[in-house]
Every structure is written in C-alpha cells, then in structure tokens.
C-alpha cells in the first residue's frame, strides 16, 4: 500500500519537481497553517487561563472558524507531505507520535467550542475543569509542534 502511494505520479511530482510551487510551497503552507491553527488555539487557552479575563467568552467565537480553516489547510498539505515519502513516514514511530498529539490537540478544542459558542453575551467565568483542559491543550499543541519539528532530525 505504502509502496503503491510511493509510485503514484503525485508522489513523484512532489519528490522530483524542481519548482518552488511543488514541495517547498506545500511545506510552507503547512507551516503557515500551523502558525494560525496553534496560534488561535493558544490565544483561546490563555483566555481560559485568565489572560484577558475582561473579554466575554463569546468574544472568542472567531477562534473556531479560524481553527477549522487552518486545520483543513494542514490536513491537505500534511497528506501531500505524507504522499511524498509514504514508506518513510508510514513506518516511523516519531511520526505516529506526532499524529497522536495532533489528534489529542484537536480533541481539546471541541469542548472549548461547546463552551464558547454556547456562552451568553456577558459570560466570563471559566470552570476549573476548563482551565485544566486549557493547560492540557497548550501542552499537547506544543508537543505536536515539537514532534513535527524534530521529525526532520530524528527520522533519518
């Protein structure tokens, strides 16, 4: 299966095209998406932890469409990056760890979305469970970035 992906025209194009619009652009889009995705999540986590507590929770509704768009970009570009070297990534434990961390990160955003979109115009209070979730969210997002960045060094 991985070898079949490796032999597709798309994989070959990503591997061999000298164009800046091939692999380099896919990778840069992936990084841009990361900045927006993780950045918007961080800002929401900070709010839940009390940074900017004057702002009612409903003021953070913009975070979710932003996260959704950036996540979409990164799933698409991430799949392309996988297709470029499927036998390489498909068998690498650090890569699987990164995937688990990304899934865990996205999972932390879901209850936050329920809280924020369901909050009234003036609601500012955050439960202690939600604060713990915010801390967990910062840790797993940071872990996902760390794992992703280190892939370039620990997977030969």
């Amino acid at each position: 299966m991985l070898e079949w992906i490796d032999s597709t025209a798309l994989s070959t194009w990503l591997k061999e095209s000298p164009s800046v619009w091939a692999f380099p652009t896919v990778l840069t889009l992936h990084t841009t998406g990361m900045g927006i995705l993780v950045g918007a999540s961080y800002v929401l986590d900070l709010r839940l932890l009390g940074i900017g507590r004057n702002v009612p929770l409903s003021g953070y509704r913009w975070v979710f469409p932003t996260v959704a768009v950036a996540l979409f970009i990164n799933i698409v570009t991430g799949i392309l990056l996988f297709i470029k070297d499927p036998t390489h990534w498909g068998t690498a434990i650090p890569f699987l760890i990164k995937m688990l961390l990304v899934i865990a990160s996205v999972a932390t955003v879901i209850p936050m979305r329920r809280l924020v979109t369901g909050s009234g115009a003036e609601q500012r209070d955050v439960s202690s469970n939600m604060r713990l979730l915010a801390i967990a969210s910062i840790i797993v997002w940071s872990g996902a970035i760390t794992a992703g960045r280190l892939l370039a060094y620990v997977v030969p």
Partner: protein
Amino acid sequence: MNLNLAHLHLIMNHVPTIGSVAALALLLLGYVRRSEHLKHVGLEVLFVIAVLTLPVYVSGVAAHQEVKTFKEVSDDAIRVHQDAALIAFVVMEFAGFVAWAALWQWRRHGRAANGLVPAATVLLVLALAVMARAANLGGEIRHPEILEGAVAAPAGNPERFMTWSVNQVAVYSRWAWPAAETVHFLGLSLSFGVLLAVNLRILGVMRQIPFADVHRLLPWGMLGFGANLITGMFFFVGQPGQYSSSEPFKWKVVFLVIAGANFLYLTVFVRPWARGNDRFDAGLGDKAMAILSMASWVAVLWAGRMLPFLGKAF
C-alpha cells in the same frame, strides 16, 4: 553597479549610533523639561532604532563575507568589530524591549510603571557605549588614519571570539540546533495567535469588545517574538554563511523591519483610546495597517521557510 549587502552596511551603519544619541537626547530633555510627551517620543525613537539595528548587524556579517578575501583588510580586525557589534546588538535589543514595555503600559494605564522609563534610559546609555566601541572598531577596518600605533587586534587564536564560540555550538552540538528550531516554531505560533486576535479586532471581528482588552494580549506576542529573535540570532551567528548572501533572508529582514514598525503602531495608536475605547470602529487607515501587519508577518514566515529552497540554508 551591483548594490550588495556590504554597501547596505556602509549606508546604514551610522543609524544605531546617531539614532541612539537622538533617542537619548529626547529622553534626557524629557527629564529636564518634565515633559512626558518628549519621553514618549524618545521611547518610540529608541524602539525604531532597535528594529533598524537588525539589518545593520546582519548586513555587517554579509559585508565580512564580501571583503574577507581583500588583502588590505585584516580579518581579525573585522572579527573584533563583529564581536563588539554582537554585544552592542544584544544590549540595543534589550533596551528596545524595555522601551516597548514602557510604551505598552503607557497606552494601557496612561503612564509607565515606576522605574521602566529610567531603566530604558540607562540601558540606552549602556547600548550607546558598547555601540560606540563597535563603531570605533569598525572604523579601524578601513580607516587607518584613526589608528594609534599598531592594529589593536593581533592575529591569532580564533577561540577568543564570541561569534566563533556560538558557531562551534551550532555546528557540533547535536541538540542545540533542533531545540532552537523547535522554540522558533513555538514562538512563531504564539506571535501569530496574538497578532491574529489584535488585527481581527481592528478589522471588525468581535466589535463588541473594547480594543484595550485585545491590546492586553500584546506582551504575549512580544514573548513569542523575543524567543524567535534569540533563536533566530543563534541560527544566524551560528551559521552566517547560510544566510548572509541568501535572497530570501534579505526579504525576511526587510519584512521584519516593516512588521516591527507596524507593531509599534499597534502598540501606541491613538484612536480607540481617544474615543473612550468602547465600540471602537477602525477607520480605513487602521484597517490597512492591520492587513499590512498580517501580510508582513506571513511574508516573514514564507521567506524563512523558503530559506532552504530559494537560498542555501538547511
């Protein structure tokens, strides 16, 4: 004529010293005349000079690469200047951060915390002193007429040089470079998130929130940027050859300067406060600045990520 970064260094290298003198004069005049306004302008000038010191430093390293084959130029004289310049750069950036913190508090509370403006002033005096030393050593590279006696730097052991030590860590440490890359990406995300919140507010998203409440987040953006300035300088000082002649790196620095100026605007701009802050609707100019802010940071990221492909960094 082919205008290279060595020319840029010669054009810009007096900006930090002369600019620091101007900022210091404004601050001191502010103290003498008891004018808060003059002090505020002094801090703004200081911040702008701190931003402009970045292209001066990196173009100097590029200039070094250009002239190091010239027989009449002493490589050691340049290395001594470069080490002094790195110290001056660090102190200058530190002064710039403190000045920024004072400006941020000023906008938020109407005045800076006790001690912050004097701290910025003292750091600026210190920056000026180390900058003057760096400038003097730089002058000796090409102006033998100011030398007294022999060249101050005898040829010899490269291990004396700070830049050399950083280079050794960057090349030989197994974890230093990957760790710095990781911090660089974490810092990038934090800065992006904060700038997204602030600029979206200016563009009209979450209009019911007072601008002051998103302005509150700016130091977190600065934290991310600070982490990236430190790790970024580690890359640059550690492996200058990868960057100094790289086309995307030039663009990265250009957009960093634009983004830095824009960040000052976001920190101090007047309109939301003048209108009692509630229900602030940004004008066209403010919205243009918000778009410029996001565009220039995305450009910084693109130029940075493209370094290995359009340039020769790894």
